[in-house]
């Protein structure tokens, strides 16, 4: 059986088109493909953003993402999953994270993709430092992200 899970933590940018092509390649049983892509916004909490610096915990990051994907696989019928997360310095508009999921059933693909993003937000060891007009600042975690993850239980 081929490996259907791809996890990558990388400084380089990625191509959504290539990732979708990999998810769909020789895959004629999954009729549904759902993707999420998160990018650096130009505004956050009222401030003008110039960019982000993303730090992570090498080693733990991959294990944590792998565990989240396994949980999703145990809840829904999904076959291929790709998670890419960038680290390092990113400018406004740049891609930060990509999650792609394939399934024979569209609801499974939607639910699993959102589940993976919700748990990535609270369990995967990434930290954002924001560079705005007011200088550098580590972002605080949002209680709304904790609430979203709890809703799956």
């Amino acid at each position, binding site marked *: 059986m081929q490996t259907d899970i791809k996890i990558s933590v990388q400084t380089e940018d990625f191509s959504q088109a290539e990732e979708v092509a990999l998810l769909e390649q020789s895959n004629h049983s999954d009729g549904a493909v759902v993707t999420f892509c998160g990018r650096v916004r130009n505004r956050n909490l009222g401030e003008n953003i110039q960019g982000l610096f993303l730090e992570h*915990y090498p080693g733990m990051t991959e294990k*944590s993402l792998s565990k989240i994907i396994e949980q999703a696989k145990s809840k829904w019928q999904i076959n291929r999953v790709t998670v890419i997360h960038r680290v390092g310095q990113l400018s406004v508009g740049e891609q930060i994270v990509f999650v792609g999921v394939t399934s024979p059933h569209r609801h499974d693909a939607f639910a699993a993709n959102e589940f993976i993003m919700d748990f990535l937000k609270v369990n*995967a*060891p*990434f*930290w954002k430092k924001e560079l705005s007009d007011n200088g550098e600042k*580590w*972002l*605080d*975690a949002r209680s709304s992200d904790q609430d979203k993850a709890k809703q799956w239980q």
Partner: protein
Amino acid sequence: MIKVVFFAALREKLACSELSIESDNISTVEQVKQHLIMQQPDWQAHIHNNALLSAVNNEMVPANHPVKSGDEVAFFPPVTGG
């Protein structure tokens, strides 16, 4: 020996990303914290922060989680990726 690592805002506040401590008399994550504060009293406010998260060998764990020689213990603020 126990390897201790810090990340993000905590790493910057402590001005330290990694250190090693003797594992004698240390059997939980909470005891690692107490040991660090004993060595560096000015770390107290940063280490005794209820929001702080802990991981042992790359798994997120509660403060009463066991720790033994050879383990890697990590402390970091709530995560903000995605």
